[in-house]
C-alpha cells in the first residue's frame, strides 16, 4: 500500500483529501506546515507528497527543494497544489522538480486519476 503525505495549512483541504485518499486505499499522513512535513518525510518516507505552496515559514518550495536534494528520495513523487495559477508559477514549480502542478480549485476526480497514474510509474 502506497504512503501519501498531504501538506496544506488549510484544514478543510486536508480533511477532504484525507477522506478521498483513504477511501482510495492509500495510507495517508497529514502535515499542516512545512516543518511538520519535513519531519514526517524523514520519519515515514512516503511514496508521494501532495504539497501546498503558500505556507508560513517553511513553504512548499522549500520542502520540494529538500526532497529533490536527497538521493534517498529520488523516487518520491511530488505534486504541487496551489492557488498560484500564473504560467510562471507553474513553470517554477515544475523546474523545482515536481512531477505535477495542479491549480486550485482543482477537481478531486482529476486529482485521484493523476495520483493513480503517477503511483503506477
Amino acid at each position: 500500500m502506497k504512503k501519501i503525505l498531504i501538506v496544506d495549512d488549510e484544514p478543510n483541504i486536508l480533511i477532504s483529501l484525507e477522506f478521498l485518499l483513504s477511501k482510495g486505499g492509500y495510507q495517508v499522513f497529514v502535515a499542516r506546515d512545512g516543518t511538520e512535513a519535513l519531519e514526517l518525510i524523514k520519519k515515514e518516507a512516503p511514496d508521494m507528497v501532495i504539497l501546498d505552496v503558500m505556507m508560513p515559514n517553511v513553504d512548499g518550495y522549500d520542502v520540494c527543494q529538500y526532497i529533490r536534494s536527497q538521493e534517498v528520495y529520488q523516487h518520491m513523487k511530488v505534486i504541487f497544489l496551489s492557488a498560484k495559477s500564473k504560467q510562471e508559477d507553474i513553470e517554477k514549480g515544475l523546474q523545482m522538480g515536481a512531477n505535477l502542478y495542479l491549480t486550485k480549485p482543482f477537481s478531486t476526480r482529476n486529482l485521484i486519476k493523476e495520483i493513480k497514474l503517477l503511483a503506477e510509474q
Partner: protein
Amino acid sequence: MSALLIIVIFIAYLVLLFGVAYWVDRKAARPGMKKWAKWIYALSIPVYCTAWTFYGSVGKATVDGWSFLTTYLGPLITLPLWWIVIRKMIRICKVQRIATLSDFISTRYNSITLSVLTTLFVVVGIVPYISIQLKAITESFEFLTDQGAASLTSQLNPPLWLDSAFYLSVILAIFIIVFVLRTVDTTSQHQGLLAAISMDSILKLVAFLAVGIFVCYSLFSGPVEIFDRVDPKLLQSFTDTSQINGLDWFFLLLLSMSANLLLHRQFQVLVAENGKEKHLKSAIWVFALYLLLINLFVVPVALGGTVLLPDHIDPDAYVLALPLLNGNAFLAILTYLGGFSAATGMIIVSAISLSLMLSNNIFLPLTVKANRVALLSSKLAMRSRQLAVLIILLLSYYYYRYVADLFPLVSIGLISFAAIAQFLPAVFGALFWKDANKTGVTLGLIIGFSIWFFTLVLPTIVKVGLLPESLLTEGLLGVSWLRPEHLMGLEMDPVTNGTFWSLLLNVSVFTIGSLATKQTAKERNMAELYTGIYSYTDSSDEKILWKGELVYNDLLKVIENLLGPEQAAVAMSHYKSNFGVPLNQDGQVDARFVNYTQRLLSGVVGATSARILISSMAHEEEIEIREVVKLLKETSEINRLNTELRMSTLALERKTEELMNANDRLRGLDKEKDDFISTVTHEMRTPLTAIKAFVEIIQDHSDLSAVERDDFLSTINDEIDRMNRLIDQVLDMEKMEVGSLSMEQEFVNPVEILRGCLDGMQGVFEAKKIILSTDWSANIKNTFVMGDADRLKQVYLNLLSNAVKYSKEEGAIIEVSASQAQNHLEVSVIDNGRGIKEENLGQVFDKFFQARDQTLKKPKGTGLGLSITKKIIELHGGSINVFSEWGNGAVFNLRIPLAQEEELKKT
C-alpha cells in the same frame, strides 16, 4: 609602620574595588543580580559620607560641639521629601535620557549657555572638595608611617616627584580610565561601579563602628567613663544648648540639605543610576539608618581622644591615632582603609560624573562648533572623557598642594557645599515652577557664584598670602560694608555670611529675572514637561516646533557614526516598526524622527551636544510670527519685493517637487494594488477549493453516512459564508484605501456603543463560560467622539470576537476597560487566552494575517478584521496597539481623540 606595607594594602584594595566592579558588570545581565540591584543602589548613596565624615566630624566635634551633626541632620530632614523631589527627577531623567546635572538644567531651560556655566561652576565648586579627599588620604598615610610623631600639617611642600599625593592622583586617574570609562553609552547603568561603591560604604561603616567600639569598651570601660574624665569645659560645649547659634545652624542645615540633593555625585548615584523608581523607597530608610549609625560614636571618639591623646595631635586624626597609639595596628589599618575608601569613593564618582559633564558640554560641542563633525565618533567621546578625568584629578592635586593643605577639612567642604547650593533655584524652579526661565536662572547663577567667590573663596586666597590682608579687614576699596567675610557689616560666621548673601541675591535675581522675561516656546514646552512629568509618563513626543529642513541621509550617517552600524540598524528598524517610515508627505524628515534621533544621540554624547548637532544640521529657525512681521516692516520696499519674489520662486520649486512626489506615490500605489489583488484572489480560491472538493465527494460517494454528509454540507455552507464575508471586507478595504469609505461624522458616545456590544455578546460569553470583567473610569460614560457609530461597533465586535475566538477552554476571562488620558479615550480589551507570538506581533494588523491554529479547528476568519479595525480607528484620528506574550493572553489598546466641550456646545 612601613610605608611599603600601606602602599601595598591600598593598591590591593583598589584592585579589589575595581575587580568587584568588573565582575559585577559581567554578571549584571544575569537575573540573579536583579534582586541585589535594590541594595546596591541604596548602599551607594552613602558616598555622601566622605573622608570629611570619617576624619572631619570628629575634628569638628572637639571644637564646635554638636554642630558637626548639621551635615547629617540636613539630609535626614530631607529624606521624606525624596519621594517627591528625587522621584520626579528620576522620572524626568529617564524620559529625556538625561545623565548629568548639567543636562538636567540645560534641557529644562533650553539653554546651552547654562550647560556650560553649570559645568564650569560645578568644577570650581567640587575641585576643592576632591582636593580635601586627597589631603585626607595623604595625611593619614603620613600619620600611619610616622606614628604621629611629626605634626600633621607639613608647611613645606615636597617637590612634585616626591609628593605621594601626586602619585595618588595619577594612580586614581589611571584606575578610573582603565576600569570604568571603557564603554561609550553614557546612560547605561554602571552596576559594577555602584557595587564597588556599596562595598566602600559598608567598609566605612564597619571601620568607624569598630573604632567606636574599641574606644568605648576597650580603651575605656564604657562611654560613661569618657564623660567622667573629659575636660568639663569641653563637655559644656555639648551640654550647654545656649551655645547653639540658631542662625548658623539654620544655614548649615540648609547647606547640607541642598548638598545632599544637588551634589553632582549624589545626582549620579541617586538619579542617574536609579534602576527602578521603587528602589528609592528602600534607599530612603537604608540611608537614614546609615546616617544614624555612622554618627553614633563621633562624640565618644572625639572626647576620648582629648582625654587620651597628646595635645599636638590634630583632632581630625583622632580616629586613626586612637587605635594606632594604643597598640592596635590591625584596627589602625582597617580605619585607614575605611578613610581611604571614603575618600576614593567620592573621588571616583565625582570624577566620572564631572568628566561626563566636561566632555559633553565643553569638549564635544567645541568639536562640533569647529565644524569637525566628521571627527565626532564614539571613540572621540570616550577619549575626551578620559582626558577630562585626568584634568580634574590634576587640578584637584594642585589645589590641594597650594591651598587645601592649610585649612581644616570641614571649612573647605562647607565652601563647596555653598557653591552647590547656588543651584537650588535652578533645580527647584525646574521641578516646580513653570515660569522659571533661563534668563532668571543664568543671572541668578552668575550673581550667586560671584558673591560666593567674593565672600568665601577670596578670604582663602588672602589667607594663603596671594592678596593683601587689608581686603579682609578693611573691605573692598576700603569700604567696610564690603568686607568679604562680613558683608553689610553684619557680624555673622563667615560661612553663614557667604551662604546668606549669595543665596539671597541668587534667588531674588532668579525670581525677578524669570518674572520679567518671557520664555521661548520651546522652553515653555520643557517647563510643561518637567513640572507635569507624571501626566506625560510614557515618553510621548513633545509638541514639536521644528521648522527646519533636515536631510534624512545625513541623519542616518551621524547615527551610524556614533552608535556603530549594528546598533544603528536596530534603532532604525525599531523606529520603523513602531512609527513607520520617517519621511512625511513633503519628503522632509518627520519631527518625531528628529526627536527620536536626538534622544538616541544624547545617549552617547549627552543631551546638549546632541541638540547642537541637530540644530547645526537643520539650520533651524524658531519662527515667531511677531519677529517676522517686525523684520519685514523695518526693511525697505525693494527688499520686501525681493523677499516676495524669492519666496514665490521657492514655492514654485516646492510645488514641482510635490508633483514629482505625488507621481511616485501613485506608481507605488499601483504596485500596492497589484499585490492586493493577487493576495485577495489567492485568499478567495481557498474556500472555493474546499467547496468544490466536498461537492465532488458528496456526488461521488453515495455510501456516505448521514453524519459525514451533514458535516461536509455544513462545511460547504461555512466556506460560502466565509467567502461572502471576505468579499464584504475586501470592498470595505477598497473604499478605505481610496478614502471613500462611508463614515458618518457625528457625535457618538463610544462607551455606550461598547456596552451595547457587550450586552449583545452576553449569550456568547455565557455559552463559552467566559467571565467578563469591565472597568469604567469616572465620567467616561459621558464622553463623546466625532465619528461613525456603526463603524465603531464593527471595531468593538471585531476585538471582542477575536478575544472570544482565542480564549482559553477553561477559566477564560475577558477584561474590557475604558478611561480617559490627555483628551483621548482609551479602551482596552484584554484576554487570557493563548496570546500572540513575538514574531507575529508586528503583523497582526496586516491584511490577511492569520495565526495558524495548532489544532485542526476550521478557521472562522478572513484575516482582514484587524486591518479594517485599525483603518477605522485611524480614520477616527486614533491609534491601536497590541501587547502580548505567547501563552499569556493579549491586550488590545485603542485611543481615539475625544470631542472637546466647545465643539459639543456648538451643536
